């Protein structure tokens, strides 16, 4: 897998007209247009949310190929639901609810273990890209690798629902109400989940200092 290539986007006209019609939340407006048969609007939604959904799923299952497969299912589900779509909740909340369901089902069904078989290769591949910095020394790169592996292990060790809450909070920057909507629980339940998840992460990661080295 190489660098991100520009995705097809000759949709400026549509984008402008859609932006002009900002009565509703932009994503909801786009989704309503998809409902009316506008595939260009679906493409716009895909461009806006493809990255966040794949990244969330990648951190959930820790396998890029599986994450992309699950993300495809998520967007297919969105497309299938276009006819019955009602903008009652924020689009992002709805989207992440679908993504969380897919990820939790995948983990629950034990396919997660299967995904791990190819994880070592992927870790090597992913790390090579993430830590590639010609100015860094070999030692610095190794330290970064160790740090990344510890973070991955700490996240992997969390219970699935806590993991989903932390990933949405930390990386997707969703607020408590959106996370609650995605996990179908109350805001106070989300705060409890986050508190317990960060408590576990603090116990496992607090020994890492800001430069990525282990404190003695």
């Amino acid at each position, binding site marked *: 897998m190489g660098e991100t290539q520009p995705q097809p986007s000759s949709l400026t006209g549509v984008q402008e007209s859609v932006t002009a019609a900002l009565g509703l939340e932009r994503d909801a407006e786009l989704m309503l247009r998809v409902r009316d048969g506008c595939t260009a609007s679906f493409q716009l939604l895909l461009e806006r949310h493809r990255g966040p959904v794949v990244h969330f799923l990648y*951190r959930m299952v820790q396998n890029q190929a599986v994450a992309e497969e699950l993300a495809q299912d998520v*967007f297919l589900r969105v497309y299938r639901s276009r*006819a019955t*779509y009602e903008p009652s909740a924020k689009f992002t909340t709805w989207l992440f609810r679908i993504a969380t369901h897919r990820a939790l089902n995948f983990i629950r069904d034990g396919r997660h273990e299967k995904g791990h078989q190819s994880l070592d290769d992927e870790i090597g591949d992913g790390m090579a890209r993430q830590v590639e910095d010609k100015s860094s020394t070999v030692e610095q790169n190794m330290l970064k690798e160790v740090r990344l592996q510890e*973070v991955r292990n700490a*996240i992997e060790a969390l219970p699935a629902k806590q993991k989903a809450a932390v990933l949405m*909070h930390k990386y997707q920057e969703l607020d408590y109400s959106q996370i609650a909507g995605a996990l179908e629980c109350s805001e106070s339940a989300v*705060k409890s989940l986050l508190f317990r998840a960060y408590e576990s*992460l*603090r116990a496992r990661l607090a020994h890492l200092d800001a430069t990525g080295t282990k404190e003695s």
Partner: protein
Amino acid sequence: MAEPNRKQYYNRQFQMNHCPLASGEENVDILLDYCNRTLDPALVDIFEKHMEVCSACRAFSESQMAVWDALDAFEALPVSPDFDHKLMARIAREEESPWRRMWNKMTAGGTAIWRPLVPVAAALVLAVGLWMRNSGPEAATVADSQLDAEQVETALQDMEMLRQLTINEPATQQKM
């Protein structure tokens, strides 16, 4: 909680030396938001004043900020360039399915034409259920009457056999 209310609430809490760490897991959002640097600036001042006297919150913040920074190491990978192409191919395949086309027709334009049929179908189910319930005892009566006829027939046959037996018996006695 709305921001002005939240500010007043925490002001009151901190004036009474109430620590957010001691008031339950669901009240730690102020701590998490402070560590994530997303806390309202007005609340930051209030919380920092509290931390000057609360070593527990100070320790929590330091370790939480370290974790927050450590998590930055877990970067996501770029999405495959053929992601959209694969998705659109799946959608196209699905659209070609005759069942999907029928469903799309039924739900076209956001108005699901089958929706008004739901109460009609429910009424039909109810009517059939009621009819079966009412016709149940009748069916049982018919079955009962068939059973009765058989019993009567058997009883009549038995009586006929007994009658023949009683007619034949005196004749044999006379011969002896």
